[in-house]
């Protein structure tokens, strides 16, 4: 990086480490709580203290982020902290520093800003929970890991954060483990993510092989030099890293964990599974934009995956009954849009959507949390209805968020989504087909969003008024909602379309980061095409039209109640079922992949049995367990058998080496 535009600032280390300190303090407070509980003392003051410590840590981090950001506004390209020489292995060194540049500043503002609001919200939401202090410890730990992820100067440090957020996500999804299924959902999330992480690691090894470094700026700078020599390796590395992003950002085919992750407390869903962690994949691709620019075939794959995910997610959300499931599938779908944007080389558009999505989806999750809180932990929308009278503040903010999500004109989501779609349209070729898919998904988005609003807040009250008394949430919860609502409505000004005055702020802001990627795209002839003002206006109009029409349809069909669903179920049971179960991808995994493997494993295991093992072992349960159970027969306790394997193994090894 050019030193003249970089200023040194060691205070950047505090940005991630303040939350870490907060996490440690909260952990200690949790232990103190446990001790006091055993002694029978009052634990509430300690719990409350933990909450304030956690919020304070995030607030301080936000303070540093804002002051550093003002330095950037003053014209600096990046601020970098001193380097910590992490690994020094002679030929291969990794020095870690915190880099606060145009891209990470935006991410940090979102993480600490939205994070602080969600922390404050949690003060109210988690009140009275016995694990209050533990919750904040995890939450702070998560923010630490996420900040590490976006601030690290190299891929290794990024990966530490990457795994760290996964771990915290696991801990937080399984937070209410007493219920049983959250613990399982947490494990599923972690393990599906690990598949992606394995790809990530291998991708980074390939980068080491290509560039001899993992320093992100060096990698970006040296792509151009080697792209002519090793196009295959570059594409493979890019693809593997994208595999990692697929896991973390819940893209097809690894998205199945995200809906299950809703087992966690709602603030967790808002912070981790909507606003921040799931966008890590987008961040990774943005950060490595020169690499992806140099691998056009991978870019196309990303576009397909993104569009497909957007479509699957949106169509699945249509018939969900659980309000958090609607939002979860919606998140999957919106992340798909971001990847679609990236695949066209519209880096800024993807980041723009990431930011607006953090606002409105964070808002919607928190709003749904407020609803759930007010409805005594009820998540089924069929048992809601007419809530606007009972919780007006939640209602208004929720509607604002929904407007943004569905892309109603002039809302933040409208601009960001339209920019992605416009870019896809402008790219021409296959991207036009992807644009059509995205357009269809946008229509469905408008539909399911307003269906959700109608089912929740309008129509008859479908709950039992004897037992359920809906009430508005406390101010700690509603104030963050209102703040987020303001951002969700007006966030669009960050990056207005070119035809409006003050356009493309974010685009210009990001230019230093994406310069290399754009250059490579330019040199390979894949550069961004610009639309004429007329076609841009047309696209904006088309987007507004679709959003308005389908929002109206969705709202209108469901204000009266749930009859529309019942009718659809009666007429097309198969189609509805198919959509409800997320295109049955999860069960397809079981049927198409797990079962044949099981069968093959069974065959192999029985052959092995025939050769050397007496007595079959009863295998049951999942594929791995049943295979493992069969393999237990290998270790049957008989020395003779072990010796036979050894003798035969040694003989076979010797023979094979001689013969090869």
């Amino acid at each position, binding site marked *: 990086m050019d030193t003249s535009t970089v200023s040194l600032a060691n205070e950047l280390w505090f940005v991630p480490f303040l939350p870490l300190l907060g996490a440690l303090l909260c952990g200690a407070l949790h232990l103190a709580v446990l001790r006091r509980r055993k002694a029978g003392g009052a634990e509430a003051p300690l719990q409350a203290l933990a909450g304030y410590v956690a919020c304070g840590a995030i607030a301080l981090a936000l303070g540093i982020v804002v002051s550093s950001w003002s330095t950037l506004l003053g014209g600096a390209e990046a601020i970098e902290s001193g380097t910590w020489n992490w690994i*020094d*292995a002679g030929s291969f060194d990794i020095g870690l520093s915190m880099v606060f540049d145009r891209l990470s500043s935006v991410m940090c503002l979102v993480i600490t800003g939205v994070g602080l609001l969600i922390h404050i919200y949690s003060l109210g939401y988690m009140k009275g929970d016995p694990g209050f202090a533990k919750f904040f410890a995890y939450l702070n730990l998560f923010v630490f890991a996420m900040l590490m992820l976006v601030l690290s100067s190299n891929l290794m440090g990024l990966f530490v954060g990457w795994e760290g957020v996964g771990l915290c996500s696991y801990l937080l999804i399984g937070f209410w483990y007493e219920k049983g299924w959250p613990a399982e959902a947490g494990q599923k999330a972690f393990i599906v993510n690990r*598949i992606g992480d*394995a790809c990530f690691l291998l991708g980074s090894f390939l980068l080491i092989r290509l560039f001899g470094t993992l320093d992100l700026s060096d990698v970006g700078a040296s792509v151009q030099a080697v792209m002519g020599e090793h196009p295959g390796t570059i594409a493979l590395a890019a693809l593997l890293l994208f595999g990692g992003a697929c896991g973390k950002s819940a893209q097809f085919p690894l998205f199945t964990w995200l809906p299950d992750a809703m087992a966690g407390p709602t603030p967790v869903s808002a912070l981790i599974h909507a606003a921040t962690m799931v966008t890590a994949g987008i961040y990774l691709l943005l950060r490595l934009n020169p690499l992806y620019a140099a691998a056009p075939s991978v870019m196309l794959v990303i576009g397909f995956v993104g569009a497909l995910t957007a479509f699957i997610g949106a169509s699945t959300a249509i018939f969900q009954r659980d309000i958090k499931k609607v939002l979860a599938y919606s998140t999957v779908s919106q992340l798909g849009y971001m990847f679609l944007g990236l695949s066209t080389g519209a880096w800024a558009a993807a980041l723009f959507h990431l930011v607006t999505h953090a606002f409105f989806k964070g808002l919607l999750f928190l709003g749904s949390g407020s609803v759930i809180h007010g409805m005594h932990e009820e998540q089924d929308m069929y048992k809601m209805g007419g809530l606007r009278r009972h919780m007006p503040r939640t209602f208004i903010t929720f509607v604002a968020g929904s407007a943004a999500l569905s892309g109603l004109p002039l809302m933040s989501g409208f601009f960001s989504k339209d920019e992605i779609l416009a870019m896809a349209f402008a790219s021409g070729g296959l991207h036009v087909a992807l644009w059509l898919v995205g357009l269809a998904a946008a229509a469905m988005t408008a539909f399911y969003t307003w269906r959700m609003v109608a089912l929740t807040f309008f129509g008859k009250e479908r709950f039992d008024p004897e037992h359920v008394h809906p009430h508005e949430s406390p101010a700690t919860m509603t104030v963050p909602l209102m703040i987020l609502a303001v951002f969700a409505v007006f966030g669009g000004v960050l990056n207005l379309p070119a035809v409006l005055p003050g356009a493309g702020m974010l685009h210009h802001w990001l230019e230093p980061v994406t310069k290399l990627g754009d250059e490579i795209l330019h040199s390979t002839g894949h550069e961004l095409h610009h639309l004429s003002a007329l076609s841009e206006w047309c696209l904006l109009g088309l987007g507004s039209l679709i959003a308005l029409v389908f929002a109206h349809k969705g709202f209108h069909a469901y204000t009266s109640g749930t009859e529309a669903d019942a009718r659809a179920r009666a007429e097309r049971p198969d189609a509805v079922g198919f959509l409800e179960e997320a295109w049955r991808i999860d069960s397809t995994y079981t049927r198409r992949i797990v079962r044949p493997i099981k069968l093959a494993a069974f065959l192999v295991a029985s052959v092995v049995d025939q050769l050397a093992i007496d007595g079959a072992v009863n295998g049951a349960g999942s594929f*791995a367990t049943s295979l*493992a159970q069969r393999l237990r027969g290998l*270790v049957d306790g008989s020395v003779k058998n072990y010796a036979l394997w050894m003798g035969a193994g*040694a003989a076979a090894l*010797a023979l094979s080496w001689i013969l090869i």
Partner: protein
Amino acid sequence: MSQQTVAAAFEIFDDAASVATAPLLTIGVGVLLYLVCDIVPRLRAARGLAFCGTILVALFFELRILGADVVPGLVLDKTFHADHTTALFGCVFLLGTLLAWAYSVGYYHASKPFKPEHDALMLGAPAGMMLMVGANDLIVFFIGLELLSLPLYCLAAFKRSRIESVEAGVKYFLLGSFASAMLLYGSALVYTASGTLSIPGLLDADLSSSTAVAGLALIAASLFFKVSVFPFHMWVPDVYQGSPTPVTALMATGTKAAAFGFLVAQVMPLLPPSGAPIVAVLGLVTMALGNLGALVQSDLKRMLAYSGVAHAGTLLLVVAGGMAGADAAGALNATLYYMVAYVFTATGAFGLLALMEADGARFTKLDSLRGLAKSRPGVAGAMALFMLSLGGIPATGGFLGKWFAFSVLVDAGMIGTAIIGALLSVVALGYYLRVIVVMYMQPASDVEPAPTTQRPMTAGIATIVCGVFVLATGLLPSLFLAPLAG
């Protein structure tokens, strides 16, 4: 003539040799001192001191080599060598032995009268390990191997009133002797083909004849037995489970590290490159078997044994990478780093089990850990840390070990193998997480009262040391890598 002999001996035992063998001699003298302390009634109180003192003095000598700019290198007519790598290995062996010993304090009940014998045997073990990694001659290696193995056979059966322990000893002994016989026959074949037993000599010799290849294969097979690789791994779960837990800790870590050290540093360059795919397949199968085996265990010791098998599979992939042409120094460093991290992690995990057994909960079933986070948060926290490290979560040593291991594979161009291996290691996290789930997310079992009795201070210190090293290997790798780079 006799004068000539003495002169030859003095000539060969030069300054470099004395520096290189100082840790070994310390151990030898230490064992004798320990026995003297045990025999003389007045000195019995000083036995612990003798044990720790010996280890610490030996550790000092190893650190002296580690810190020196000029290493002794090949000494004693090229039969032994000492450099930064062997010194670091030596430190790990000594510390591992000390930790295993710390966990053994207060562990034995019925066999307590024989505790001094136990300690003497344990004290001799690191000498065998150091001989193994420093060996540059098959004779030296063989004696080192036996110096390690024979005491371990006895230690495995040390709870001689329990059938499980004796059975573990018998199984380990029989299969170990079989492996030794293969090693000897293999060495004999290699010697017949090449006329030398020294590794530098073998590096120069032509080893392409089928005799030599068969001999190398048998040597490799016996090493594969020691490091527990398919199809030589089946003894591991039985022996680890049956042996006294502190002995298991030593067996699982030190033996494996020493055998891998010799395998990667000395044998790997001799192996035929065309055999690399077979070794890679063995590694993958081992990983699969280890992980799947661990998945269904309800006994923690057994689960950790299978997990150790899986880890051995990962490292065997490094060997395959080295055979296929990856940078040999890189492969050795990767192995060393992996093993450093693994030794402290696994010793800690096994040690905590020993601690809980000693406390009175005389079993190592997974269920007996239920609710541990509430009853003993410290033990649970340490255990969780070790599990995360074994699972390869960043900021722990286990992660960096895996990182280096897989980067060797990619360096060798074995990307397909690397992908399968990385995916297989995904499965592993399932059972490590289960331990954490059981400790943190399940209510205490009502059948078994929470273990509460004596907690030897040594075990506490050992756990802290393990924990610190696990984190240090994860966060400050330079500490361990810097001496190797120079």
